[in-house]
């Protein structure tokens, strides 16, 4: 059947040579006037005929369901003429009732009603004495719905042959229509004989029985129904028939039914048996052809889409360089890089890239996926000029509650990369997406990492991805040697030999990168190293005697504080705007507890380099020592108001408040901060809040709470917090299990000395000794100042104020050292601990331990 969708499809137009006949529709089963006609099938657009698809003969169109047969009109005409003329020719050559019936039947088959009528008139006269032909004509007319006309033929046939079953049935049906049921039954008596079902159809008997029932003659109806059940036992299982019989039985108030007991069947149970043939889905060849057609269309669309995808790939060209580069893809085009990713359309294949501008490189690359990946994969090809851009691949899961943290993968250092799957290349991910409540979806994003790379390094370090952190930090310092955070991360993560190689290679770079040199100088500890460094830097100073940076750096490796101060002074004089000499001179003041003397120098360093975290940290410590609480609080609160998520500011404020024992207000700062950082994402907020909380708990001395909180945290930060709490709670043995004495990679002498302090504070001097000896060993292998400090621990040594003044150590370490020394030298304890308390300013671990030890000894 033709069909249209939104006016597009196939449709019949035209209606000629119409003929109708009364019959039962083959599709819906309703009795109707079925129509046959000629028409034309068109392909239509908005129901406007566009392409003719051929003339059709519509056969037996049902007025109710519109179902019909359709054949090619010319084929129909050919078939009709050949069959009809064939039958007519046979009749003409051999005029018997059989050939007459065949010819008439052919005319009816091809709906030649007029011709059939004419022919019927001819043969009814010609074979007037032939009962079979007369009966046939009756049947033929009945089939065309002309029951009244048929009766005369049946009548005639019956007169000729009263035994003829067709004639008896035809007349009986006429009697039934006219409600002459007794006459009808008489004629149909042969159907009531046993075995009649094997010779005849019993349908007329059922018609008669139903007629009796309608007429209220239930006794007769039941007699006939009984005959039917006897002849066709299966009929007794058909629901419709059973209901009909039961109706008559009910009318006669019969207590016993003639119906057989119904057999149980699941098909009956589910009501399937009645319309089985109509309803059972059967896959026909036509259905299969349609299905195959749809599959072919689907496969074709998929193949075209695949080919389109293959020919329309995007190469993203990115650069982390400050100056734009020119990228030429041979055979495709040229493009200049910018701050964002530039997309270049190309088909899959092998290419040659030429990069020029700030750097020059040439390489071959291939853009390719396998066939099936083009359907499901989301690959992205990135040409990263010189590997200079830092890209971040993030896989973000969307779900209603508590989505997991995103998975992050950095991409850098490679000139060409295929990254997949990426659903959102260089476009922002949606904040929310609409989906079912129990659903989860993961989108992947690739973009430049816009934050300082050090943040990513820190992230990797915190999440135990040391290899990623090392790779990233090395790439970063090669590209940006002045990135101190990357530099320090690199040196802490890389193998010492590798770190030395990398750092040494950058020493000759000019202008001198002080941070680079400082880290290089700090690579090793010991007098030999410093001596060797002094020779190296003296060589450099020969070439550049007025280089402030080199003068400063030379001061860092001088043999004593006095010499250092001279070098720093020279450096300051050589370049008053170099912050490092100011900072170094301030450090010297601070190391002897002269906080007031150190303050202006630190302040100058901060003034010259406000972004220098080390300078500002030192100045904060200095001001804390000078108890400038009020101005500090005011400044920090103001800064926090403008940068509410700045961790360093919040941390400083907590320290300031804790130093004043204003724990409640410090807790308030913590609460406010944790709210502010929620916008950074749940995981980030949790980590930042936790770090600040742990600092608050330690700074305010609530070690039990700190221990509770860190007990279940297996991260390095958590284990450190637990260690700290247990030391401060006097549970040194438990603390020792977290960081045992033989812990590899721990070479900080002050850690070991602090542990000896803890054991002594816990009352076990015996256990303190190995820790102290280990600390002193490490110290002895250190700088000149450290070696001198060890000498003070000699059994005969009597530390003097001058000796202590001459130790150019960091105040925090020096405080630990003096606290331990005080415990060993009872005679000088008072002086030593007083000095230690003066230097114990930094409120991070082991601030409270030192404070406690020095206080007890007071």
């Amino acid at each position, binding site marked *: 059947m033709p069909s249209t969708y939104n006016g597009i499809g196939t449709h019949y137009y035209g209606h000629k040579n119409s003929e109708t006949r009364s019959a039962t529709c083959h599709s819906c089963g309703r009795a109707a006037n079925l129509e046959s006609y000629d028409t034309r099938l068109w392909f239509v657009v908005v129901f406007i005929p566009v392409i003719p698809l051929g003339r059709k003969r519509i056969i037996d169109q049902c007025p109710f369901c519109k179902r019909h047969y359709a054949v090619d009109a010319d084929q129909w005409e050919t078939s009709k003429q050949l069959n009809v003329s064939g039958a007519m020719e046979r009749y003409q050559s051999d005029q018997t009732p059989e050939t007459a019936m065949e010819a008439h039947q052919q005319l009816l088959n091809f709906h030649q009603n007029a011709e059939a009528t004419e022919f019927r008139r001819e043969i009814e006269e010609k074979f007037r004495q032939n009962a079979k032909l007369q009966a046939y004509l009756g049947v033929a007319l009945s089939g065309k719905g002309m029951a009244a006309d048929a009766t005369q033929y049946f009548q005639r046939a019956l007169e000729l042959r009263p035994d003829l079953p067709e004639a008896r049935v035809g007349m009986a049906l006429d009697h039934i229509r006219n409600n002459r049921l007794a006459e009808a039954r008489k004629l149909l008596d042969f159907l009531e004989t046993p075995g009649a079902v*094997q010779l005849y159809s019993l349908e007329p008997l059922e018609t008669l029985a139903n007629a009796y029932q309608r007429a209220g003659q239930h006794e007769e109806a039941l007699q006939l129904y009984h005959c039917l059940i006897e002849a066709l036992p299966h009929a007794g299982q058909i629901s419709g028939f059973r209901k009909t019989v039961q109706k008559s039985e009910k009318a006669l108030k019969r207590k016993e039914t003639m119906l057989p007991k119904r057999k149980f069947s699941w098909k009956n149970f589910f009501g399937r048996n009645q319309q089985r043939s109509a309803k059972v889905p059967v896959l026909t060849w036509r259905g299969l052809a349609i299905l195959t057609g749809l599959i072919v269309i689907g496969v074709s669309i998929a193949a075209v889409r695949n080919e389109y995808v293959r020919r329309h790939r995007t190469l993203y060209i990115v650069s982390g360089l400050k100056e734009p580069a020119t990228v030429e893809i041979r055979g495709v085009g040229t493009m200049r890089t910018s701050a964002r990713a530039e997309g270049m359309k190309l088909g899959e294949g092998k290419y040659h890239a030429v990069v020029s501008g700030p750097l020059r490189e040439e390489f071959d690359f291939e853009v390719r996926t396998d066939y099936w990946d083009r359907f499901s*994969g989301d690959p992205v090809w990135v040409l990263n000029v010189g590997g200079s851009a830092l890209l971040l691949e993030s896989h973000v899961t969307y779900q209603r509650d508590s989505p997991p943290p995103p998975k992050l993968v950095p991409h850098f250092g490679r000139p060409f990369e295929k990254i997949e799957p990426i659903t959102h290349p260089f476009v922002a991910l949606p904040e929310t997406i609409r989906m079912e409540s129990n659903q989860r979806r993961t989108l992947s994003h690739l973009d430049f990492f816009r934050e300082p790379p050090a943040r990513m390094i820190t992230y990797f370090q915190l999440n135990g991805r040391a290899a990623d952190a090392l790779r990233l930090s090395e790439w970063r310092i090669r590209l940006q040697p002045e990135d101190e955070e990357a530099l320090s991360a690199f040196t802490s993560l890389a193998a010492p030999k590798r770190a030395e190689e990398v750092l040494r290679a950058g020493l000759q770079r000019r202008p001198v990168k002080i941070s680079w040199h400082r880290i290089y100088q700090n690579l090793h500890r010991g007098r030999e190293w410093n001596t060797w460094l002094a020779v190296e830097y003296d060589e450099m100073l020969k070439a550049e005697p007025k280089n402030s940076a080199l003068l400063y750096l030379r001061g860092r490796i001088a043999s004593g504080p006095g010499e250092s101060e001279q070098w720093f002074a020279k450096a300051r004089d050589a370049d008053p705007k170099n912050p490092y000499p100011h900072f170094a001179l301030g450090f010297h003041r601070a190391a002897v507890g002269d906080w007031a003397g150190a303050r202006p120098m630190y302040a100058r360093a901060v003034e010259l380099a406000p972004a220098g975290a080390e300078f500002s940290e030192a100045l904060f410590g200095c001001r804390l020592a000078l108890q400038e609480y009020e101005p500090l609080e005011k400044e920090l609160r103001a800064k926090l108001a403008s940068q509410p998520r700045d961790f360093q500011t919040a941390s400083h404020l907590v320290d300031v408040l804790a130093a004043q024992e204003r724990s409640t207000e410090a807790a308030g700062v913590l609460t406010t901060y944790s709210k502010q950082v929620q916008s950074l994402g749940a995981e980030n907020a949790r980590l930042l809040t936790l770090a600040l909380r742990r600092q608050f708990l330690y700074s305010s001395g609530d070690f039990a709470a700190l221990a509770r909180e860190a007990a279940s945290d297996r991260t390095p930060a958590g284990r450190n917090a637990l260690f700290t709490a247990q030391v401060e709670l006097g549970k040194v043995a438990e603390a020792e299990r977290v960081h045992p004495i033989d812990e590899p990679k721990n070479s900080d002498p002050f850690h070991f000395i602090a542990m000896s302090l803890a054991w002594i504070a816990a009352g076990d001097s015996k256990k303190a000794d190995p820790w102290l000896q280990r600390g002193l060993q490490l110290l002895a292998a250190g700088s000149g100042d450290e070696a001198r400090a060890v000498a003070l621990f000699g059994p005969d040594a009597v530390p003097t104020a001058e000796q202590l003044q001459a130790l150019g150590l960091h105040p925090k370490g020096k405080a630990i050292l003096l606290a331990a020394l005080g415990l060993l030298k009872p005679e000088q304890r008072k002086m030593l601990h007083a000095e230690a308390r003066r230097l114990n300013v930094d409120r991070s671990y082991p601030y409270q331990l030192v404070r406690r030890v020095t206080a007890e000894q007071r």
Partner: protein
Amino acid sequence: MTREEFDAHVRQVEQQFAHHPQALRVRLIWLAALGYAGMLAWFGTVILVAALFLVPGLGKPLEDGWLLLLIGGLILAFGGWAVARVLWVRLTPPEGRVVTRAEAPALHGMLDDLRHRLRAAGFHRVIVTSACNAAVNEVPRLGVLGWPRHYLQLGLPLLESLSAAELRAVLAHEFAHLSARDGRISGWLYRLRRSWDQIFEKLHQPYVQGAVSLRPLLVKFIDWFWPRFNAHAFVLSRVNEFQADAVAAWAAGPEPMAGALFRIDVYDRLLSDRFWPDLWQRANREPAPPSGVFDQLRTTLHAGPSPEESTKWREQAFRIVTSNADTHPCLTSRLRAIERLPEGVSEGVFPPWPPIVEPSAAETLLGAALGPIRVDVEATWRKDCGKAWTERHARAASLQHRLQSLSQAVPDPAADVDSLWDQARTVINLESDAAAEPLLRKILELRPDHVGANFCLGRHLLEVGYDAGQTHLERVIEQDEDMVAQACGLLHAHFRRTGRTDRVREIEARLDRHEAALAASQTERSNITAADTLIPHELSAAELEGVLALLAAEPEIVAAFLGQKQMRHFRKQRLFALCLEVQRPWHRLPDRDFERTMTKRLFGKVRLPGRVLVFAPSGSFAALARKLRTVPDARIFSRTK
């Protein structure tokens, strides 16, 4: 492949491998392998198509490859199911009374002895049936893939009519088909042929009419493959039958073997031609199957036939010829092969009717179990035929009623062929052809070409052994092409029974030709296109006169062309094509509606000695019209201005 082609193929194979049985076996093994490959290739195709999706799918992470895996899995599941559905043919095991070792130790002892002597496979079941036959039935557990169970069927009438020695020969013959004595391969090929024969027959039956199944494609392969395999296997199977006879003669002695072959043949005729028809006649009178049928059967066997029947059946037994419809050779050939063909058979002197021997094989081998077995076999028979018996009884009642009404309703039936034919048909249905013979003859007096009467009378006459029946059947073949197959079938059976090999072959060839022509002819007669060969109309002036008058009476017709289609089948039939050219100004397009009205009007009036297509040279008829114009003398009408 037609019968004639099959016979030719069998003859060719026989000639080719006459002295090379080993080569025939090798050829058959290859053909069997091809058959299995042809059937298993479906699974291979499904696996291959599924692998196209599964292999790439397995090479990917699940989240990317799931769709491929799903498609591959669906193809594997549904394709595998569809193929399994196509190949799955279930053969039901034969039914009958199972005879256990405990019940009949003598019978099982004989079977064991033969099995050991002939190194044959054993039977899973021994069952006794109501047929006068013995057979090994193979029911494959895996459909076309084989793994059979062997059932030995022994007919109770057979057991009752043979001696123990003769039954031993029969059993030895059946064992020989399972025996390794003459090569397992031959036996396997013999059984494979029988098994595939049943299975392929079932494969030709669709599950649901109109539903999609791959089965037609498999059937196409089978239609190509099976005749080739069968022709080769047929030759081997026939050889196998002779070998089985030889083995049986060796194992049981040639005399019992010859006696068994002769006795089975003639006693089977006694039962099938007399005992069972007579018994079923009782269904017209008795509402339920009678009791003691197998006792009566035994009595009939003991009583033997009448002298006339004896002569007829003995003659038929020895005269019947071997045909390619069955691998079993005819009785004469089998007896000759074991050198026990009675003297005088070729001169028409046949051995006397073999009397029943005492004690029978049934009594000897079943012993005390015979009684219960007979009761059980009869009970099974009663159960099996109960419904048919009741239906026949009811039908008889209805037919009697019809017969009565016919005789009452038609005062002078002799004057009315139709009522005579109705009577004759009723009598045939109720009784037999013989009972209706007078009516049939009366019909033929009135209408000598009456197809039905000729057919029934011909059938009856051949049955009773009168060659006059041939004439009636030939008349049927001439008159009604729809009855050709049935009439030829009767003639074929008659000529085979009477040993007329030449006529058997002729009938087979005739049937082949008819079957090939019937379908093609129907297609040929129902269409005509430009692709057909058109020839001159070959009508006389008198025959054309009417048409020309009609054309002249239509002023719009300017020319007419007439030709006929060259018929390749049933050349007597004629199909004419009449093309009408209608007057039309040169600048106007054809008026299709007018042309159609014109052709329709003329079609109703044109009378030619055959089928006619009247058309105008437009639309899809244009090409036909162009071709028709090129036919000599096609232009039969031109209107001059």
